[in-house]
């Protein structure tokens, strides 16, 4: 594989951060904010998403049958359906259609009106599917002129550039850049300046080309099989013009765009604009069952009525002058359909919400976070499916698994899981590397050789941490030493600008045993209950995640003290890793084994009705999300039902009569900036922390940044350090003015501490009894 090296990647990302990042961030984050607002105002959003998802599942299941249905429907209307195996097949077919149509037009001209034998011409509306097959290049090679009519696509055509976003293809260019480009290229009398002037020029220029074109090509957002109806969702109106003006219309769509019936279209029409741009509905939802009754427009015969010789509906279905071809593209989709992990990708309606909601995407755009054609979170699935794993491998690591896109996706695709699966497959396709010996002793994983040693190191971080803790403080001194940092950077790709975690000699588990273990905890809890607490008959197993146990033991101790003060006895047993670290490196086999071990270790406690409380949100997210794929259903359900995030649990205790006065409370107005963890938000667990802080006399203000940019190991990696800081700075700017800043995730806390240069504790540390103001 000709993959970029670490420093080449770092260089490329740095370049994009400077050049395209600002324009992308401005637009993508604005769309994301509008999307959130519109989602929030849509009462039946969840029902719509569930419906849309079910329709897609059903349609992909029945795909071969739907292809036959649509073929019959389109043919009955008088059109043609062609199923193209791959890009070359599709391009050759379309080139044939265009040449035949142009020849026919020339012949007609020669025998009568104004003959011209110019190159055949095509006008196109925006379509990612035609980008996927490089249709423009294919047609141009066949001597056909192609003009993009979507303004964004046309800008790119003029600039000889590629889309940086699946919905806003020219998002990386700002108005000034477009004006410069157009002034240079078209040399107007008065230089273009405003968006208004640029748009007016484009409208006139393209309008003329449309009226002269031989063939109009569109994509299709959806194809209704039963009626042969193609649906085009646009805001500009160019797709309508391309479809209706020339007498030949070619629509090109991936086979996955088929849905069974007209009524199946409704939830998608309702959702797609909301998820894409936050509009309630797009300007033009065009549903055409071509050939349509609309008269063709022959601008070369300006004095003919458009209704012409009455070739309208009287002739039967559709206007008989019209010709329609539906090209259904396979190009790997049949194989994706049979791939249990990639199949979900085919449910994608390409709204771009996963790109907009992604902090990394907002920083670098689709030229960094994208492959040959597709960009953003779901691009990994598309690229792996249609262009192959190598294209996906180029950018797959940019998905940190933050899961913010999961809430955004209108068809509920588990986009992070697709990224994890493809990462796993990429890991397995590598050659064994020479640094394996470095991590061999530290990597009791289930992975075959060949995986990047840095990934292997972070994927096995639990073992690393245990060893480091056992040898602390020597391990910490060593890790800080210059030559060691250089070696870590060289071999494992750990950026030397990052502070490494300081491992504690005494782990949380050891501390807990040292202070008397479960017996002492029961006594403390009983005393607190007697001294004025409520009768709360619960027992907690506090999960000692790797970071809490070996690095950030303070938040673990704070959790223990808080629970006891509220009358709940705690145990902190030595439990296996959750598999989160392995998952984030794409080491699914390792995660699978760890999930089983952890469940086995907890099974007895779960049976005994104990509650599992988790501090690190990413570990809880593994239990609540990924374990569904790793554990038997019953085990998953049992663990999910009985496990809680620490502040969520405290919230429950307060709701059930426990008194906030047992904790460290504020004066009612003490401002606290709070950054919830990305995965915690996806679990809908930001609100309980905010509520607890409020109940305890603080005035929390939540950040709106989607992610801190650190995302576990991501920010440590040399090639991503600057991207991680770019994302982190946006968050830091939001919270820096607050005197107290708290964050739920270890990564978030580390990142903020690095940027703000002060302590950023977990909220539970603020709340724990005996907390002294810093």
């Amino acid at each position, binding site marked *: 594989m000709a993959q970029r090296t670490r420093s080449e990647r770092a260089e490329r990302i740095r370049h994009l951060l400077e050049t395209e990042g600002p324009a992308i961030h401005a*637009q993508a984050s604005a769309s994301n904010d509008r999307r959130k607002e519109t989602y929030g105002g849509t009462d039946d959003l969840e029902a719509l998403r569930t419906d849309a998802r079910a329709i897609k599942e059903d349609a992909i299941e029945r795909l071969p049958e739907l292809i036959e249905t649509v073929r019959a429907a389109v043919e009955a209307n008088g059109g043609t359906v062609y199923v193209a195996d791959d890009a070359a097949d599709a391009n050759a077919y379309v080139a044939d259609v265009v040449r035949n149509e142009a020849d026919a037009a020339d012949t007609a001209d020669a025998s009568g009106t104004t003959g011209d034998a110019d190159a055949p011409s095509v006008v196109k509306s925006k379509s990612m599917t035609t980008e996927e097959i490089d249709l423009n290049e294919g047609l141009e090679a066949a001597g056909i002129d192609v003009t993009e*009519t979507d303004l964004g696509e046309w*800008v790119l055509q003029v600039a000889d550039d590629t889309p940086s976003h699946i919905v806003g293809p020219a998002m990386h*260019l*700002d*108005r*000034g850049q*477009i004006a410069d480009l157009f002034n240079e290229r078209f040399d107007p009398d008065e230089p273009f300046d405003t*968006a*208004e002037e*640029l*748009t007016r020029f*484009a*409208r006139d220029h393209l*309008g003329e080309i449309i*009226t002269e074109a031989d063939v109009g090509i569109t994509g299709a957002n959806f194809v209704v099989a039963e*009626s042969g*109806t193609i649906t085009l969702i646009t*805001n*500009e*109106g*160019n797709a*309508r*013009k391309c479809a*209706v*003006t020339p007498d030949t219309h070619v629509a090109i769509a991936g086979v996955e765009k088929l849905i069974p019936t*007209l*009524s199946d*279209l*409704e939830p998608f*029409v*309702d959702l797609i604009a909301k998820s894409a741009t936050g509009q*309630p*509905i*797009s*300007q*033009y*939802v*065009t*549903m*055409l*069952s*071509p050939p*349509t*009754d*609309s*008269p063709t*427009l*022959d*601008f070369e015969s*300006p*004095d*003919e*009525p*458009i*209704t012409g010789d009455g070739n*309208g*509906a*009287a002739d039967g*279905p559709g206007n008989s002058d019209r010709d329609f071809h539906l090209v259904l593209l396979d190009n790997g989709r049949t194989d994706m359909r049979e791939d249990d992990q990639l199949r979900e990708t085919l449910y994608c309606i390409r709204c771009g919400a996963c790109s907009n909601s992604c902090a990394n995407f907002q920083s670098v755009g689709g030229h960094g976070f994208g492959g040959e054609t597709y960009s953003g979170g779901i691009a990994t699935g598309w690229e792996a499916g249609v262009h192959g794993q190598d294209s996906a491998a180029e950018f797959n690591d940019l998905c940190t698994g933050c899961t913010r896109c999961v809430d955004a996706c209108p068809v509920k695709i588990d986009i992070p899981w697709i990224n994890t699966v493809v990462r796993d497959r990429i890991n397995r396709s590598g050659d064994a590397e020479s640094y394996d010996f470095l991590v061999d002793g530290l990597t009791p994983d289930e992975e075959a050789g060949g995986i990047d040693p840095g990934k292997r190191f972070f994927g096995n971080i639990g073992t690393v941490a245990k060893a480091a803790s056992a040898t602390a403080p020597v391990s910490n001194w060593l890790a800080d030493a210059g030559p060691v940092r250089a070696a870590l950077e060289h071999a494992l790709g750990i950026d030397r600008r990052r502070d490494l975690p300081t491992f504690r000699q005494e782990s949380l588990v050891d501390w807990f045993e040292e202070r008397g273990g479960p017996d002492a905890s029961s006594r403390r809890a009983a005393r607190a209950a007697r001294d004025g607490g409520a009768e709360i008959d619960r027992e907690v197993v506090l999960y000692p995640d790797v970071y809490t146990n070996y690095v950030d033991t303070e938040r673990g101790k704070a959790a223990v003290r808080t629970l006891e003060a509220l009358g709940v006895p705690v145990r902190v047993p030595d439990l296996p890793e959750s598999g989160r670290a392995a998952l984030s490196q794409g080491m699914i086999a390792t995660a699978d084994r760890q999930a089983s071990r952890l469940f086995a270790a907890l099974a007895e406690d779960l049976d005994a009705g104990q509650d599992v409380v988790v501090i690190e949100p990413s570990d809880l997210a593994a239990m609540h999300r990924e374990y569904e794929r790793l554990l038997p259903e019953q085990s998953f359900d049992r663990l999910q039902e009985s496990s809680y995030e620490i502040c969520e649990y405290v919230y429950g205790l307060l709701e059930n009569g426990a008194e906030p006065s047992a904790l460290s409370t504020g004066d009612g107005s003490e401002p606290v900036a709070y950054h919830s963890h990305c995965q915690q938000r996806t679990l809908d667990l930001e609100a309980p922390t905010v509520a607890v802080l409020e109940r305890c006399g603080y005035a929390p203000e939540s950040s709106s940044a989607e992610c801190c940019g650190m995302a576990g190991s991501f920010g440590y990696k040399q090639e991503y350090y600057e991207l991680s800081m770019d994302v982190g700075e946006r968050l830091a700017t939001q919270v820096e003015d607050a005197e107290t800043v708290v964050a739920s995730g270890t990564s978030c806390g580390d990142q903020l501490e690095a940027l703000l240069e002060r302590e950023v504790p977990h909220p539970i540390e603020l709340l724990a009894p005996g907390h002294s103001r810093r």
Partner: protein
Amino acid sequence: MTVDTIGRFERALEGLEVEFERVAAADASERIDAVADAPAVGAALPYEGVSLPEAVTIEPTTAELEAARTGVTPVGFAIAEYGSVAVESTADGAEPIALYPDRHVAVVPESDVVPNLSAGFDRLADGFDAGRDSVVFATGRSATADMGDLVHGVHGPGEVHVIVLEDR
């Protein structure tokens, strides 16, 4: 049809910066004449007692279509919730007439304004059964942000005016 639905339609159109008025069928021709800036082209209105004013050219030539400032068309129905009008692809050219000129005047009987998208899809399905199977839900004015700022009137109309026939 409830008054409420029309109120909702009006509010949605207001948010989209689309002009709206309710008129009696008997006055429609005059009102259309007043809002259809010349030159105007149109597709015949199929509503009893309502006809296009003289100044609106029906069955236009392509030259007239290209030169027109206004296009007047009937619409199959309208969806109050989103302020959408359903432009049907008919043999007399309603779709290009609604699309090419910079100003679209859409005429819809009050009884054809449905409350929400669901009801719109019911109407759509009825139309499909009757052979009217090419329809555009047009909502507001054509728009783009591709040139770096939001601009209206790109390929489609930059002005839209909806006339509701209150007694039809």
